[in-house]
């Protein structure tokens, strides 16, 4: 790829960096306990929690760093952090 003049670059290439490899714990989402409030999606520092067509919230595990904020803040305790099986 040719070097861009002036240290400039087009948007969005950060997705090349799969930060999911960082985590030790991963969030497990219980869609039955979920009240669909959307809080997890709002407060994830990665912005990696998406809402599926079935209106379920799922993290993109390619990028989830396992910080546990979603589990901590979920008002229905529908998210639990579990040690990831590698």
């Amino acid at each position, binding site marked *: 790829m040719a*070097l*861009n*003049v*002036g*240290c*400039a*670059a*087009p*948007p969005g290439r950060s997705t090349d960096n799969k930060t999911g490899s960082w985590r030790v714990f991963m969030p497990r989402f219980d869609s039955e306990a979920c009240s669909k409030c959307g809080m997890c999606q709002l407060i994830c520092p990665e912005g990696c929690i998406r809402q599926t067509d079935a209106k379920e919230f799922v993290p993109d595990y390619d990028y989830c760093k396992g910080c546990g904020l979603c589990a901590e803040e979920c008002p229905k305790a529908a998210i639990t952090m579990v040690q990831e099986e590698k």
Partner: protein
Amino acid sequence: MALEIMEGSIAVAQAVRRCRPQVVSAYPITPQTHIVEALAEIVANGELAADYITVESEFSALSACVGAVAAGSRAYSATTSQGLALMFEVCFNMAGMRLPIVMTIANRALGAPLSIWNDQQDSISLRDAGWLQFYAEDNQEAVDLHYIGYRVAEDHRVLLPTMVCFDGFILSHTYEPVNMLTQEEADAFLPPFVPKYRLDAASPVSMGMYATPEYYLEFRYETDQAQKRALDVIREVGREFGERFGRDYSALVESYRMEDAETAIVAMGSICGTTKDAIDEMRAEGKRVGLVRLRCFRPFPSEDLKAALAGASRVAVLDKNIVLGAGGSTPRGAVALEVRDALYGSTTPVLDYVIGLGGRDVRIEDIKKVVALCEAGDGDRFYGLRTEVL
């Protein structure tokens, strides 16, 4: 093509007006003040459709220009000495980001000790930063180099910020006859700025990202290559200026009475006007002396200089700056260092004269004395050091 008699600063302001910058951001500093004041009046009278930002320091002046150019507007600033030193960080930043601008430098000595008078230390001290640097001999050149400066800087083969240097007080505050282009002539020569990238929600880019060791060298290479490409772009644009307006700027160095010169003087800026007069007098006395004037210091025109000095038996470099601590046990200026580099491998003696620092006047007789010293092999020294006050 009428000539008008104008103060150098006012002439520069009028040239800048014809370049149609959309943003003017400048902080006043002696001896550039008349430029920014004249531009403020021009804007206040609706003679230039620009936004004039009265910034709170030179650091902010150039930073605001970074933003304005990144957003796609042609911008302008002017400074000197302490103000340019305060912009040091932004100068490197702007060149690395490849944002073009023309900035006038009314050359002035750097403190300490504080001095408001002329030498070329300020712009020379930034020779590493990646800016193009032009040095004007007189106010006509100072004026013309602004149009040429924008054309070269904004060329997509170059995209580098550019300093147009003219000696503070000596040129900025001197009335000389100048020919001003009409607005139509300027517009025909200098079309609107077309940036390579700009900050635009319709087409987002991230500008000014940081570079890890894997990329940094390559960015520096690219910027240096832009300097190299500028040599030809300056020749091309300078030739076009000559074809349109009758004053040719295609030569990066100017040879004056060099045809059979034994002693060649190398210098930049207004000192060259005095030197030419001195040469005429010395020639009348039978001395074979000439001048090779550097109009362009960055990029340094090594090949042109070498060719111009080919026939000389000795070279006297007039340095209106000093690279403190360089030269071993003798004083050294930056121009001599680069002249010697250009002549590497040649046996022609190059003798350095640190002269005119802090506004000390250089007269015709001083040039003659320098030539005599050079002929006697007495160089790499200060000229006119007042040992009685030491």
